């Protein structure tokens, strides 16, 4: 049996590895996407005062701390039975919209985009952000950096620093915005809307006008008919910060809609012996293995899933972009994993528009930003849409608010089963007996997971810095016959 290892996989946050096992005939026998690390966050939250959890849990990740911070803060609202004043909710959503602009920008231009902008077969030395800037031009490259920097500034204004904000409190937030600050936010929001429009234009020019790419997006190798999950507002429009969880079936019909507190009635977790990642599935459909279709409880989260699970976008330009995506790809729901990149840009535009709306809201500079909790804490659930999908924080405390049990279901974990299936399907379709396993081919397999924007939630990812990526190919005797040059 031959074994191909892609370890560690690149352009994702955290660490993981992909192993592909071939049979003697050279066909794919099985594939495993493994997360070989155990973090233990839930365990060491036990015994801590619950008020510390928005600070502790956001350390799960240096990339999406804002998502954990707000899911945790909302869990505390529920835990302490307190409803924050409206300006506090709007400030939270404003910070979160800024965060989305930075995160989706990073993914499209730096993590996921290079495959399309440079092409899957481009040399690794060019298939990165520098290659992208070379192709789209220095001006847009500068706009990418500026957009990220400006929105980090908004996060800094409210959160006190650029990363790991000190902001959310049970019943509100720690700081509001001054009249001077909001003027700057408005300006940044306007520029972010223009940047998002431009990004959709870039996608149109580079990806949609290239028949080869469009054929790849709609090809069977990158398609799975699954259930989709995402938060929606009272009009069933996509919402990142608040609302009910809506699940649609593979035909796009509403399958379930529930409040955060009810999540355990809908989601259960399947365990496999070969990875620390658990596999959430829809309890009321059941775990049928790593298969798609209406009878399998596998669901997907993240941008495309959110758009599939909703009836539209709550802002006008994003709604237009949403309609264009579905009319181009043949209606709802879209099952093509690679369309996730497009859906992400639709969301980038929504986040920027929502940021602008909130910055123009007369209530946003109101000083009523906290309701002091007075009830005895017991149990709380907070759900937000992290950029990578539905994120659940669930805490149970004693009467002093000390954590007895914490359960965190992170976005990437919600997608874990689907990611495995996507890798398996792409590998089966691309690796054939007698066909040389080229770098481009291995990259096309990586392209099956990259749309999910995996965050394997790893605090160690900044040390020792970027890992080189040896893609190792072994022959049937286990000897290394091919090794790709390091990437990133």
């Amino acid at each position, binding site marked *: 049996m031959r074994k191909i290892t892609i370890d560690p996989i690149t352009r994702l946050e955290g660490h993981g590895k992909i192993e592909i096992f071939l049979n003697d005939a050279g066909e794919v026998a099985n594939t495993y996407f493994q997360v070989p690390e155990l973090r233990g966050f839930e365990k060491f939250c036990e015994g801590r005062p619950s008020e510390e959890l928005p600070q502790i849990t956001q350390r799960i990740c240096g990339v999406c701390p804002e998502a954990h911070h707000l899911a945790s803060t909302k869990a505390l609202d529920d835990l302490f039975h307190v409803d924050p004043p409206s300006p506090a909710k709007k400030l939270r959503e404003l910070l979160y919209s800024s965060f989305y602009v930075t995160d989706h920008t*990073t993914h499209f231009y730096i993590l996921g985009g290079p495959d399309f902008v440079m092409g899957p077969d481009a040399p690794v030395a060019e298939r990165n952000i520098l290659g992208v800037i070379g192709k789209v031009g220095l001006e847009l490259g500068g706009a990418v*950096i500026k957009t990220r920097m400006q929105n980090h500034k908004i996060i800094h204004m409210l959160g006190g620093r650029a990363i790991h904000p000190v902001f959310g409190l049970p019943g509100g937030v720690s700081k509001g915005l001054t009249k001077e600050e909001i003027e700057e936010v408005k300006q940044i929001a306007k520029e972010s809307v223009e940047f998002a429009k431009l990004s959709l234009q870039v996608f149109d020019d580079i990806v949609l006008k290239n028949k080869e790419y469009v054929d790849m997006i709609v090809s069977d190798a990158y398609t799975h008919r699954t259930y989709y999950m995402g938060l929606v507002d009272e009009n069933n429009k996509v919402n990142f910060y608040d609302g009910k969880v809506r699940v649609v079936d593979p035909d796009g019909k509403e399958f379930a809609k529930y409040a955060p507190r009810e999540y355990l009635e809908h989601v259960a977790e399947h365990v496999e012996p070969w990875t620390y990642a658990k596999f959430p599935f829809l309890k009321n459909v059941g775990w049928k293995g790593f298969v798609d279709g209406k009878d399998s409880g596998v669901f997907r989260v993240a941008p495309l899933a959110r758009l599939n699970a909703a009836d539209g976008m709550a802002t006008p330009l994003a709604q237009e972009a949403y309609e264009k995506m579905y009319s181009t790809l043949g209606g709802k729901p879209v099952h093509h994993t690679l369309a996730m990149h497009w859906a992400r840009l639709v969301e980038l535009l929504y986040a920027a528009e929502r940021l602008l709306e909130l910055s123009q809201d007369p209530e946003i500079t109101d000083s009523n930003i906290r309701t002091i909790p007075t009830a005895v804490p017991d149990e709380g659930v907070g759900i937000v849409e992290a950029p990578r999908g539905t994120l659940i924080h669930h805490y149970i405390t004693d009467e002093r608010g000390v954590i007895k049990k914490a359960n965190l279901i992170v976005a990437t974990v919600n997608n874990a089963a689907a990611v495995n299936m996507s890798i398996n399907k792409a590998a089966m379709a691309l690796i054939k007996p007698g066909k040389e396993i080229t770098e481009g081919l291995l990259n096309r397999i990586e392209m099956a997971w990259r749309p999910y924007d995996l965050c394997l939630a790893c605090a160690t990812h*900044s040390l*020792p810095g970027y890992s080189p990526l040896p893609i190792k190919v072994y022959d049937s005797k286990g000897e290394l016959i091919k090794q790709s040059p390091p990437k990133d």
Partner: protein
Amino acid sequence: MRTLVLGLGNPILSDDSVGFRVAQLLRSQLDQREVTVLETGVAGLNLLDLLVGYDKAVIIDAIQTVEGKAGDVYHLDPRDFD
């Protein structure tokens, strides 16, 4: 010409704090009107935010090399990364 001196590393991780410490020592010896000195623990893409707006950057960091000994000093310029 705006110049940035940027010390990278983690101040509580022994050898990895060298970039931090050098930047701190340089701060008192450089004319702050011409040179900005910063220390940071961030890495990767987040560094872009710090580099924006400068014409020149001097980055001080600890690296691990195959042949090198602890304490060796390397001067690298952009061509070394081609």
